[in-house]
């Protein structure tokens, strides 16, 4: 019982780590979404070199473990004089890695919208890019919300890997505390409970957003 009381006293440290976890998750999610949306749209513009470049990015960054990418960003870039702090390294690493996934997710979302929609928009005088942005993307977002929600929850958990580059997120703090207190079970169970407390609302938010965006549809 006294072990749990000790962990209770250490809770602020773990919660501080959870805040960093949320920061990395939010930052990487925003970056990955930006990359995913932009590249998915650019892929539809039928410019061959651009399509090839984006396809190569997706293939490469999906194929290399995110931990390897984090090490390259955090340690490898110092070779060329770029030194990033752990948290920005993690945001960039997860963002670029996630961007490769989300490019595919948004591509599939855009492709699921009937071709007649883009033609109708073009016949209103929109360029292809404007039609994609104004008419197709808002519809595609509905389609990709479930995989996007899954991605966000997965990302939240994967940020534990950022402890490997010394980002002081939840798992980093948990491991540090275990090293000091040897209360492995209590501390990791508490960390698990905090992850759960952060993940569950994400799932709820996704369903809420789906319900909101399905206005006008059954």
């Amino acid at each position, binding site marked *: 019982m006294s072990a749990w009381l000790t962990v209770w006293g250490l809770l602020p440290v773990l919660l501080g780590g959870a805040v960093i976890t949320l920061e990395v998750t939010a930052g990487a999610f925003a970056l990955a979404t930006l990359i995913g949306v932009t590249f998915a749209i650019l892929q539809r513009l039928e410019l061959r070199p651009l399509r090839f470049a984006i396809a190569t990015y997706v293939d490469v960054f999906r194929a290399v473990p995110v931990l390897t990418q984090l090490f390259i960003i955090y340690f490898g870039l110092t070779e060329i004089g770029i030194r990033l702090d752990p948290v920005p390294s993690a945001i960039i690493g997860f963002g670029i890695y996630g961007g490769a996934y989300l490019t595919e997710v948004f591509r599939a979302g855009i492709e699921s919208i009937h071709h007649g929609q883009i033609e109708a*928009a*073009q016949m*209103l*005088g929109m360029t*292809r*890019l404007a039609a994609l942005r104004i*008419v197709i993307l808002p*519809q595609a977002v509905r389609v990709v919300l479930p995989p996007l929600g899954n991605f966000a929850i997965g990302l939240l958990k994967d940020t534990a890997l950022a402890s490997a580059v010394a980002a002081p997120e939840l798992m980093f703090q948990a491991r540090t505390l275990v090293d000091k207190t040897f209360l492995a079970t209590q501390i990791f169970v508490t960390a698990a409970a905090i992850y759960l407390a952060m993940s569950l609302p994400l799932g709820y938010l996704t369903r809420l957003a789906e319900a909101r965006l399905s206005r006008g549809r059954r």
Partner: protein
Amino acid sequence: MASGRTGEDAPAVLVQTVGLTKRFGEIDVLKDIDLSVRVGEKVAIIGPSGSGKTTLLRCVAHLERPTSGYVAIGGERIGDKLVNGRWREMSDREIAGIRAGIGMVFQRFNLFPHLTALENVMLGPTHVLKRSRAEAEPLARGLLRKVGLEHKAADYPERLSGGQQQRVAIARSLAMQPRLMLFDEATSALDPELIGEVLNVMRGLARDGMTMLIVTHEMRFAEDVADRVVFMDHGRIVEEGEPHRLFRSPSHPRTQAFLHAVVDREAMIEAPTS
């Protein structure tokens, strides 16, 4: 409206296709089509399925790029421009600029499902013509009134019948104040009892003097509304002429055969027990 380019009394030519050919793989869908439509003229295009009617309309809108030949709208070629004496492909933005003056009504309506009827009609004016919401909304409501659907302004397409969706789609096109309207089998996807309401809206547009290119299977409507009927088969214009003449005494055997088949079918629908 007429620009008087020709210097004659007849209205100027608004749409012209010259040697228009479209090939999909090994198949020639359009073969050497020469067609002119004057300002204010209503031209109905009829013919069997696969005759190239829809492809012709899509080439006029430049949704398909011709394999050879060209389409000119108001004397300006769509898709290509002359730069230093050589024809170059237009940019997407330039083509979009020409399309802004062409309304197109699709067989499947293609309303934007995430927007209400009103928002569908307002989208072109606000995003393309850069009108403010305050300017665009009364215009859009007026157009919904014109097609008899002002009371459905707040409804999403899914809550509208096919006929209502198609009327919203017509209002959406009109919101861009086009000089030409293209109708691609606008009633083919509708239940029979909903066809009349769409045709009535199209009749109203014709009365207002809109230039219309209408691909249709509604022969009576074509006869009533069109100034000229074009019969197509196997990618060619087989025969064209004044509606009463073409429907009553077609000169080409293929036109005769097609019209006989259609008339027989309509007669069967009207007298199913006989």
